[in-house]
């Protein structure tokens, strides 16, 4: 039995923030959970799936985030409690439906959980999802620690039902992927009955159809939606998760939320400023509780905003301060805009310490300066940087190798539009700098579709795009449909590695089992692409020569969109992990080392971590611990020095 459904009295566990969110939802009696994988959010759906049977849940990895919200909304419309979860980029994808959902409202409690990634630790951007709450005109909650990540979820469900609208809960990497002690509360029964009532009057919140349609009559729905937001602001005045610690009249008030509240506490404690600085930790960051804010602003002459990514608290609190200047007096503000905290990247205790130490003119050093200098010099000398690369045995390295060769052989200055997945490293030396554009999920295909239509302006470069199997279903299919319909002659290389690999092998519509382990129809990408009207070839990326030939052939074909499916499971996938196809060795007598035609092509260019350049012997060798035995490097070596022997 999972510890997530521990029903012991006073049970306490060390939980990741994501697990705490799940436990909170279970304590709230959640029925349906949906999402699309993305770091740092992915554990939430996985945890729900582990307890789905015991807790009578329906859980799914949806095709994309917009569909995930729609699936969760259906549960809400039928009177159930539901939650949909995604990383910050996913909220962009879901935003169209969210805007309309916020207008129609919800029935059973419904939460949108967005896990942001300040500092872009595992993202292509550090996008800010909090601004969506303002745009969508829905309430936003931000838990400040692990216990609160659990406790705030039942409160958020109650709020959603009270307001009849979706409530957004925002976490960040340093909460979602950090762990702390969490005391459990009781779990409710699991009986639930779903029914969609629709026969009442159009705008009846309990019995009418759920329709977002305010054509030329904004007052009908937009008005009530704003009333809900006003109600939320009233409720937020007494929200138990807004807390203040510090003296009654501090010299400086920190206004903060989320993981930043923990950094603020630490900084105040480290600098010994507890008697001089107060911390107002807000869990309700949109709409702001104005009364509470005014009370605390009035007590302090200086205000410091501690938050990550966009200065949203800073902007919104300044508006409150401006509107109530006569009551609270004139303040001095510090934060991103004053330059006391950086406007990009994630925060940490040191950055808050630096801001406070500057404002209060209190000197601070983490370690003695002489030690710091000496140890940094040691690291510079002895710790070579660790660059990102594909795993040993990764199909993407082989794919990019062939793609690169095909482009060079073609000789028309062709290029590849990149997409989102591990294969973003196609923009880096690990992927031989193959990809020349990189933006959002599915955008490689859309951009390639556009490039393909520029022939009339004299552009004759062959255009290619890459996308993974999960990304194909998520967002590349509409772009491919566009290209086929518009006769845009680009070549899509569909890197099918059998799962949503980057985030941990979550299933997608092409997978034969779903997140609950049930057998489900697996959509056949090859048949789909053919049926859509593309010219389709399939290749095993480990067969370098055939892959290169097929790609060159497709690049020649100028009449419409083409798809080359590069099918080989991820090296870390359950089906390949721990299994060696080949024992690979280097025949030192044949290795040409630095005299090799391309100067150590295997180690210098191909760059698989399983192949090591032996600087003393001046030959390549195989690291047996690292090598997973894919055998691809044997086809790279021009001297036939890399030998592969099939493992029986």
């Amino acid at each position: 039995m999972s510890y997530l459904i521990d029903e012991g009295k006073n049970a306490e566990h060390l939980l990741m923030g994501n697990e705490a969110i799940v436990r909170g939802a279970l304590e709230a009696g959640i029925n349906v959970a949906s999402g699309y994988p993305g770091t740092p959010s992915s554990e939430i759906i996985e945890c729900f799936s582990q307890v789905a049977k015991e807790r009578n849940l329906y859980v799914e990895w949806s095709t994309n985030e917009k569909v995930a919200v729609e699936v969760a909304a259906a549960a809400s419309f039928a009177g159930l409690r539901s939650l949909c979860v995604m990383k910050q980029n996913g909220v962009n994808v879901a935003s169209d439906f969210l805007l309309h959902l916020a207008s129609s409202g919800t029935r059973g409690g419904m939460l949108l959980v967005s896990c942001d990634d300040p500092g872009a630790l595992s993202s292509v951007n550090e996008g800010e999802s909090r601004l969506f709450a303002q745009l969508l005109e829905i309430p936003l909650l931000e838990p400040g620690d692990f216990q609160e990540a659990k406790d705030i979820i039942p409160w958020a469900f109650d709020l959603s039902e009270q307001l009849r609208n979706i409530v957004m809960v925002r976490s960040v990497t340093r909460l979602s992927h950090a762990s702390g002690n969490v005391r459990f509360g009781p779990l409710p029964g699991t009986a639930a009955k779903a029914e969609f009532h629709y026969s009442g009057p159009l705008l009846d919140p309990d019995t009418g159809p759920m329709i977002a349609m305010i054509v030329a009559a904004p007052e009908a729905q937009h008005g009530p939606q704003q009333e809900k937001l006003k109600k939320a602001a009233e409720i937020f005045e007494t929200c138990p998760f807004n807390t203040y610690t510090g003296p009654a009249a501090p010299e400086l008030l920190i206004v903060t939320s989320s993981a930043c509240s923990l950094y603020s506490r630490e900084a105040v404690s480290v600098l010994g400023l507890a008697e001089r600085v107060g911390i107002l930790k807000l869990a309700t960051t949109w709409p702001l509780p104005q009364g509470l804010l005014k009370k605390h602003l009035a007590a302090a002459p200086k205000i410091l905003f501690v938050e990550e990514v966009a200065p949203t608290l800073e902007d919104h609190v300044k508006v409150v301060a401006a509107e109530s200047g006569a009551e609270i007096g004139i303040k001095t503000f510090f934060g991103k805009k004053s330059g006391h905290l950086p406007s990009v990247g994630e925060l940490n205790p040191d950055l808050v310490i630096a801001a406070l130490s500057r404002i209060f003119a209190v000197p601070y050093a983490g370690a003695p300066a002489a030690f710091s200098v000496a140890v940094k010099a040691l690291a510079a000398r002895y710790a070579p940087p660790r660059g990102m690369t594909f795993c040993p045995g990764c199909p993407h390295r082989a794919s990019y190798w062939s793609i690169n060769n095909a482009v060079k052989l073609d000789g028309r200055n062709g290029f590849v539009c990149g997409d989102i997945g591990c294969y973003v490293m196609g923009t880096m030396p690990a992927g031989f700098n193959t990809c020349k554009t990189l933006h959002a999920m599915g955008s490689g295909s859309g951009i390639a579709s556009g490039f393909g239509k520029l022939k009339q302006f004299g552009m004759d470069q062959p255009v290619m795009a890459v996308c993974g199997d999960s990304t194909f279903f998520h967002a590349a299919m509409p772009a491919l449909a566009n290209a086929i319909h518009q006769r845009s002659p680009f070549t899509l290389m569909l890197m099918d590695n059998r799962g949503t690999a980057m985030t941990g092998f979550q299933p997608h519509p092409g997978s034969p089992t779903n997140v609950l382990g049930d057998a489900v129809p697996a959509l056949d990408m090859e048949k789909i692409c053919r049926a859509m009207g593309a010219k389709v070839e399939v290749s095993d990326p480990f067969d370098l020569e055939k892959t290169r030939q097929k790609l060159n052939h497709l690049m020649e074909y100028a009449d419409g969109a083409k798809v080359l499916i590069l099918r080989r499971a991820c090296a870390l996938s359950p089906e390949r992990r721990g299994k060696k196809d080949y024992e690979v060795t280097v025949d030192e007598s044949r290795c040409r080392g630095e005299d090799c035609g391309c100067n150590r092509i295997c180690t210098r260019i191909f760059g698989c971590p399983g192949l090591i350049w032996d600087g003393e012997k001046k030959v390549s060798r195989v690291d047996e611990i690292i090598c997973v035995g894919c055998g691809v490097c044997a086809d790279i070596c021009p001297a036939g020095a890399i030998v592969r022997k099939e493992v029986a």
Partner: protein
Amino acid sequence: MSDVKLAKDPYNVIITGVGGQGNVLASRLLGGMLAKKGFLVTIGETFGASQRGGSVMSHLRISRAALASPQIPKGRADVIVSLEPAEALRVLALYGNPETILLTNNHPIYPVGVIKGDMVYPPVAEMEAAVMELLPTAHFIDATARALSLGNSILVNIVMLGALGRLNVVPFNREEFKEAIAARLAAGLMEINLQAFDAGYGMV
């Protein structure tokens, strides 16, 4: 050793290494043992993209008084446990101080730049000598060789936990380790993990 008092509050431990070495499991095991004993524990983890052969780091904060933030302030690590020597130096440079207790595996995992021959991985013996000059109490042990002698390099993280147990600075013992393994891993893995723990215990 389970009654060890924390030398400081919060007590700050960093477990670092390279993606795939079992760094996250080690920090969860240790954190779980301490939380079970009533400590307030925070573990901040840096993984994600870094799991693809990059640097991985877990910050463990242990307290009797208050939940600490998921990131240790620079220069304030009390213990650094590293599964790879270059990572030990990288973390020491940011989070170390003259009192930091450093325990590291001495078996290198080459960064891609070294594998490609663009950079050189310095001799570990030279690295060790330089570190000992700055931190005379540092421990360099060949945990990888010990793990391989037990049959699998993946046991490095457990060998290092055993060695940490012997240092007697973090309050946990073999019995608690056994319970933590039982709670997290399949029953068949108990014996080999205990062997790895004991092996590490005997290495410092």
